[in-house]
């Protein structure tokens, strides 16, 4: 036993020598003006939301060419303590901007923004902000959803589109409704069937949900959940698939397009403001116009006239001449969502509480 201990101790010693030889890379005088700490909910290679955010960070670093640097932590749970200590560690590491890329990280940002007035906290989604160093940012994903709905409606033969959705609440319902409106614009007979899986990140359930929709006759699958499992399920059954969050094709030939985030746009914008000292919290809402919201190149499976139509409307969105929610729109229970001749503004859109006519849940 003693001999064994001695060997162990010797090994520990060897390690310490190795360690002493290790290089200590210290930051020598660089011209980094902002150091950003990114807090991600998933892994950076998830092919979805977190990957989109991570690649945005990388692109932004390139954009600022030496003036911006970042560190990140992936797989952070939506647990305020976990988020707070992660952010505190980042501040210790010299970060002066914290970008928290999940809704559940908001409370931690809110608390820390009070305690650390010199640090800027940028929270994806939600509505919390203050007047100096805490802002939220989001985007008009309904625009991209509308365009993908057009693409979907142009290829369906069964006139049934499937939509795998996380939870039944405003954000998700905005997407479903915009998608439906886009689809109806191309093909008025189309019907959108929705499966709520009541979770964000359960690939198995996403797959099951997609299969349920395929069983119900859907031949195009769109989704609002974290993984690309729905795409895979659709391709397996030779149905069309539409991606989300990140332009990742997991369905091969059956991939139509994707509605996705292009967060570099916001990072460049907000970080530039911080560098210039002109940052003011504004509850940023990106659009197709500034490029935060994007749609992947549309597959050639979509008839060329529809592709042209999609490009037209996209241009109108960029020009600000097209509103997704233009009346008359009725909830599926018959109540009015938007009067004829009216359009919904951001506040109106974020007051949606149900699905519109043409949508049915299974």
């Amino acid at each position, binding site marked *: 036993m003693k001999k064994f201990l001695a060997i162990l101790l010797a090994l520990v010693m060897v390690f310490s020598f190795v360690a*002493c030889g290790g290089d200590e890379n210290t930051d020598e005088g660089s011209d980094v003006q902002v150091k950003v700490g990114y807090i991600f909910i998933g892994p950076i290679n998830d092919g979805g939301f977190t990957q989109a955010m991570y690649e945005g960070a990388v692109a932004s670093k390139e954009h600022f060419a030496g003036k911006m640097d970042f560190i990140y932590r992936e797989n952070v749970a939506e647990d305020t303590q976990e988020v707070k200590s992660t952010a*505190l560690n980042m501040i210790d590491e010299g970060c002066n901007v914290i970008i928290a890329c999940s809704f559940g990280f908001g*409370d931690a940002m809110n608390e820390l923004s009070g305690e650390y007035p010199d640090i800027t906290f940028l929270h994806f989604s939600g509505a919390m902000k203050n007047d100096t160093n805490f802002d939220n940012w989001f985007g008009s994903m309904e625009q991209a959803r509308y365009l993908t709905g057009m693409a979907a409606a142009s290829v369906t033969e069964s006139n049934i589109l499937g939509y795998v959705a996380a939870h039944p609440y405003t954000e998700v319902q905005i997407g479903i409704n915009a998608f439906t409106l886009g689809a109806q614009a191309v093909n008025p007979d189309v019907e959108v069937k929705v499966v709520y899986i009541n979770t964000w990140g359960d690939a198995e359930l996403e797959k099951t949900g997609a299969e349920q929709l395929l069983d119900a006759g859907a031949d195009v699958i769109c989704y609002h959940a974290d993984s690309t499992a729905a795409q895979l399920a659709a391709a397996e059954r030779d149905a069309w698939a539409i991606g989300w969050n990140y332009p990742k094709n997991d369905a091969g030939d059956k991939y139509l397009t994707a509605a996705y985030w292009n967060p570099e746009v916001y990072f460049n914008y907000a970080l530039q403001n911080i560098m210039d000292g002109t940052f003011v919290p504004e509850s940023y809402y990106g659009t197709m116009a500034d490029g935060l919201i994007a749609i992947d190149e549309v597959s050639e499976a979509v008839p060329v006239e529809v592709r042209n139509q999609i490009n037209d409307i996209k241009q109108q969105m960029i020009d600000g001449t097209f509103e997704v929610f233009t009346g008359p729109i009725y909830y599926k229970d018959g109540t009015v969502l938007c009067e004829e001749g009216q359009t919904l503004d951001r506040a109106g859109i974020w007051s949606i509480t149900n699905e519109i006519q043409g949508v049915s849940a299974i």
Partner: protein
Amino acid sequence: MNIRIIKRSDMPKRQEIIIRIAAVLMSIVFAGLILVIFGLNPLKIFATIIKGSLGTEIRIQQTIIRAIPLTITALGIIVAFKMKFWNIGAEGQITMGAFGATWVALNLPETLPMPVMLLLMMIAAMLCGGIWAFIPAMFKAKMGTNETIFTLMMNYIAIKFVTYLQYGPWMDPNAGGFPKIAKFPANAVLPSVFGINIGWIIMLLFVVFVHIFMNYTKKGYEIAVVGESVETARYAGMNISRIIITAMLISGGMCGIVGMIQSSAIEKTLISNIAGGYGFTAIIPAWLSRLNAVSALIVCLAFAMLIQGGTYLQVSLGISSAVSSIVQGTILFFVLGSEFFLQYKVIFGKKSVKAETEVA
């Protein structure tokens, strides 16, 4: 070569300590080897873990804040485990405790004095956590159901229930369409002492409580007897159903308190992830402490260091979250593995060594 495994009967304290130290050293060496394979400098990693958990005052506070739910949950689990009632349902009991506390916080007037409010929240949390543990306990006591599966399943019910509240009836209309339950009013937030929420005082009180309860009360004695032999307990005239139910009410009640602390001091609202995995993680320190309340506190503090240090590791060295999980896992593997060597002896080769078992 011939390998035999023999159960030990007794071991001198000194040897026990040597084995435990060896386990820790082994874990460091092996974790180090793995890190070298990843091309990382192990000593720097270990130093970073220490630095990340104890390096500054704020980090020490963060470590203790994590130790609070871990310790109280472990204490709750100890009470159940002592009875050999495998309560895997702490996660759900924490969640339901948080639910109870939240109901009180959001429904009673904001003008209520803080101590009254907090006390009511604690009572509600203990009740809800206790009830969540009581249900499987009752089924076990009356119908002999398997508590492991039952308590495990109760977790999912609790978490899904809170998810439903968060996205449904309790969704805050002022959250701009996002799924969020309203924030607690100021009188429902646990105050801090020395920069740490007073959960740490509650934690210390519970350590003392469980220690006394398990060792110096009739109920604690009964729980130990039931855990050792239900037949003996029956024979001694104990009301086994009542003991099981009482113990589980206490166990679940403590877990409920964890839910109250987490919702009041940390989240300041209710979220579906309120338990944050503590209900499962705490099983390990509960077991490592050999169901002793005081050791549980020490083990939980060490655990909290490991978790907090792991967080810092990722941030400061920019390494993947998998690496810090591997380091944590390796250390656990050896420390848990040493338990095996404390109970069994492995004999190599033909040479006979004296075996230590009961004399036949």
